[in-house]
């Protein structure tokens, strides 16, 4: 529903089964000439809807396969598809021919060649690269996750490719140029948390992808090459449905943008960057009154405004935006303009104020009108009082994220357990929460565990490291314990504050559905990690930093690592020998030891361990600060 939680979300319903390493065997055997030539003769147009119009009935098996294919093209769930492909070779082939969306959760788990060999008719590719902790500068840049080998392979194998979604990949301008030139029917490009490209690359995509519907740049780093990329969209009516560029830090040619919006009748989603003033926003809204998703840009006037200029009628622009359900932006907000959005509040299901420095008083008149709100991202500048206002009105709230305006450790902060308690009491349907604060109590967390039983994602970041419950001075074990105990659907958990091994024993005991766990500055001993590795059968992604877990703990997970997407451990107590043991015991794991750029040699202590299952073994693009054991 919301623009943040498409298939790129960390919390997506990632139910693909563990990578089946038998597939490797099947793929290599799968090259018998007779089969491939006869199957190549058949029409395989499942999308036409009709049955197999013409085929040679050379082998009765082929009839079955054809029928199977026509059934399998309706199968969309990745998990079901993977299961189907394991039935027998015939099913394997049929599934491979009918899978049109390829989702690769770790770009190094499988090579581009292997993927394109197996899946022949792919229209959509989703690729994820770097581990999440790379976002926080925990490892040097240029670690890898290059899009280049993928786009090269796909350019040859999938001329009909329509959609590419990348998350945390390194994409260059050349890659974008190759993409733009290789797929005549290309429709959607979504880049989330990517880097390595600039406005030059965007220009090529804009000019060459003639059937482009979606160009979404989300939290990506875009170099300013001083190319006016917006002007590169061709003249004439555009098929654009979604244009998201709020993360692009370069000034934009507004006239070209306005012209583009004016000739994009299908445009539903438009998220502007902070170089678009509120006056310019008004002009665009007038051109596109049917938008469903709007990112407002700066939401303040430009610097150069003539004294006698009449202010446009912002209220009537928003009144006309009857389809608007998702609002974001406010990058340099002047709160005086906030009342302009009143007309849309009643329809909003998603509101992102996470770049808007507003206080409780400024928030209240807005939020009190947002009865349908399901997603709310905000800064802690609204304080506990603002959160209470949210709790009073937003009874349909599903997702809340509270970001800190001052990202540092402190004793006091604007939001605390008071806000969390209020939310838990008012927003009973809450499913996902990310909450940054300076202090917290077990009582409030326990209250949330009881009031919000539907929680799937609970991420609490107490910014002061090793902070106990500030009222009782106890560790935060009981609070997080209550969360795993009472929130029976919980799949994602991030813990913080003062935590002993006890907290981990609770997680291991009750967190049976947990897939993603983030740990920082927590635990007392190896037992902590062992509880989790031994107790959580669904664990897929485990990221740990600065916690006292060593080689013994690492070894306790041997039975489970092949079922996981990855394990990240940084600044823990691992040694090279310990990691080498794991590498020896698990040939299909890639065990990377990453050091900081200035470290010359790897010493005994491991700075960062990043390990993941892979069919390919050690990758060939390792930078010098990475050693693969």
């Amino acid at each position, binding site marked *: 529903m919301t623009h943040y939680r498409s298939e790129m979300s960390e919390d997506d319903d990632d139910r693909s089964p563990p990578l089946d390493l038998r597939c490797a065997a099947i793929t290599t055997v799968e090259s018998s000439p007779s089969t491939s030539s006869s199957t190549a003769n058949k029409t395989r147009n499942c999308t036409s809807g009709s049955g197999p119009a013409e085929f040679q009935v050379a082998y009765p098996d082929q009839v079955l396969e054809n029928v199977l294919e026509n059934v399998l093209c309706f199968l969309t769930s990745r998990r079901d598809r993977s299961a189907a492909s394991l039935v027998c070779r015939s099913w394997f082939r049929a599934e491979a021919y009918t899978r049109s969306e390829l989702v690769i959760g770790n770009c190094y788990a499988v090579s581009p060649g292997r993927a394109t060999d197996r899946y022949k008719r792919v229209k959509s590719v989703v690729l994820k690269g770097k581990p999440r*902790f790379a*976002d*926080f*500068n*925990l490892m040097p840049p240029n670690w890898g996750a290059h899009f280049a080998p993928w786009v090269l392979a796909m350019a040859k194998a999938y001329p009909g490719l329509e959609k590419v979604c990348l998350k945390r990949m390194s994409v260059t*301008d050349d890659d974008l140029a190759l993409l733009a030139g290789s797929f005549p029917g290309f429709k959607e490009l979504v880049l989330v*948390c990517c880097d390595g490209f*600039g406005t*030059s690359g965007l220009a090529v995509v804009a000019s060459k992808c003639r059937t482009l519907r979606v160009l979404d740049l989300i*939290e990506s*780093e875009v*170099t*300013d*090459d*001083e190319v006016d990329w917006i002007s590169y969209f061709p003249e004439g009516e555009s098929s654009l449905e979604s244009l998201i560029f709020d*993360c692009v*830090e370069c000034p934009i040619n507004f006239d070209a943008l306005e012209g583009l919006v004016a000739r994009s009748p299908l445009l539903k989603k438009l998220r502007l960057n*902070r170089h678009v003033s509120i006056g310019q926003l008004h002009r665009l809204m007038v051109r596109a009154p049917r938008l469903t998703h709007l990112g407002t840009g700066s939401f303040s006037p430009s610097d150069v405004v003539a004294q006698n200029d009449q202010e446009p009628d912002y209220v009537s622009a928003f009144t006309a935006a009857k389809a608007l359900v998702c609002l974001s932006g406010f*990058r*340099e*907000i002047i709160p005086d303009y906030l009342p302009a959005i009143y007309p849309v509040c009643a329809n909003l299901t998603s509101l992102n104020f*996470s*770049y*808007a*420095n507003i206080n409780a008083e400024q928030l209240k008149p807005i939020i009190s009108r947002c009865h349908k709100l399901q997603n709310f991202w905000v*800064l802690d*500048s609204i304080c506990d009082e603002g959160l209470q206002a949210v709790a009073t009105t937003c009874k349909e709230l599903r997702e809340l994220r509270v*970001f*800190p*305006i*001052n*990202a*540092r*450790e*402190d*004793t006091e902060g604007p939001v605390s357990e008071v806000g969390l308690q209020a939310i838990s009491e008012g927003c009973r349907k809450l499913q996902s929460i990310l909450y*940054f604060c300076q202090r917290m109590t077990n009582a409030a967390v326990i209250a949330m565990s009881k009031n919000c039983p539907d929680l799937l994602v609970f991420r609490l*970041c107490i*910014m*002061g*490291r*090793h*902070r*106990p419950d500030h009222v009782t*001075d106890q560790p935060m074990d009981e609070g997080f314990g209550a969360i795993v105990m009472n929130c029976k659907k919980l799949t994602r958990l991030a813990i913080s504050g003062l935590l*002993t091994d006890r907290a981990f024993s609770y997680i291991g005991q009750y967190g049976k559905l947990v897939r993603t766990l983030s740990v*920082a*500055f927590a*635990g*007392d*001993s190896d037992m902590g990690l062992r509880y989790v590795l031994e107790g959580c059968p669904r664990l897929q992604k485990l990221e740990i*930093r*600065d*916690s*006292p877990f060593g080689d013994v703990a690492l070894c306790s997970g041997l039975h489970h690592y092949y079922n996981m997407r990855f394990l990240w451990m940084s*600044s823990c107590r691992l040694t090279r020998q310990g990691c080498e043991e794991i590498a020896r015991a698990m040939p299909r794991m890639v065990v990377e030891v990453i050091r*900081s750029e200035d*470290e010359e040699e790897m010493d005994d202590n491991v700075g960062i361990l990043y390990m993941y299952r892979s069919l390919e073994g050690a990758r060939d693009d390792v930078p010098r600060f990475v050693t693969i054991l």
Partner: protein
Amino acid sequence: MDYESDLNLKATELRLGLPGRDEPENQWPPILKNNKRVSAESSESSTTKSNSIVSNAETCHRDSAPPAKVKVVGWPPIRSYRKNNISQKKLDAEAGGMYVKVSLDGAPYLRKIDLKVCKSYQNLLKALEDLFKLAIGEYSEKEGYKESDYAPTYQDKDGDWMLVGDVPWDMFTSSCKKLRIMKRSEARGLGCF
């Protein structure tokens, strides 16, 4: 990794709680372990300007007041894009660095380079050579960059284009706004060719 014996670091250990509170015995002291990772680029409220952990700890011990706000890398876990774009604090995205754009005549893309990291003309020229895969050679006062087809130039605060290497390094870094690697034929009149 036994620090306990020599420095009595328990007493000076940085903690973010009230002084005098009991902590579990085997508490992990992450700051001391990660002394490579801790950066002293604290925000404006930092109580110390020193880069060294020990001196931070000493300050803390002396004052027995609010703990020094030493930043740990990547904590709290906020993406730098978000940190740098909150409207109240428009921090320079590359705080501590001195990034200038570099263009090369004929190349399609601009690059950026951090002058602070370079520290000297020698490093700067080497970095430019690596970045653009060309040879610039050495600077000579009389003859500029005679060994190369290219000449690195920069635009200073007044908007004038100057040959790189003319002025002392510090003066250069404080006035350089942009770099441009010109074809040598175009750089006449800038230096002594």
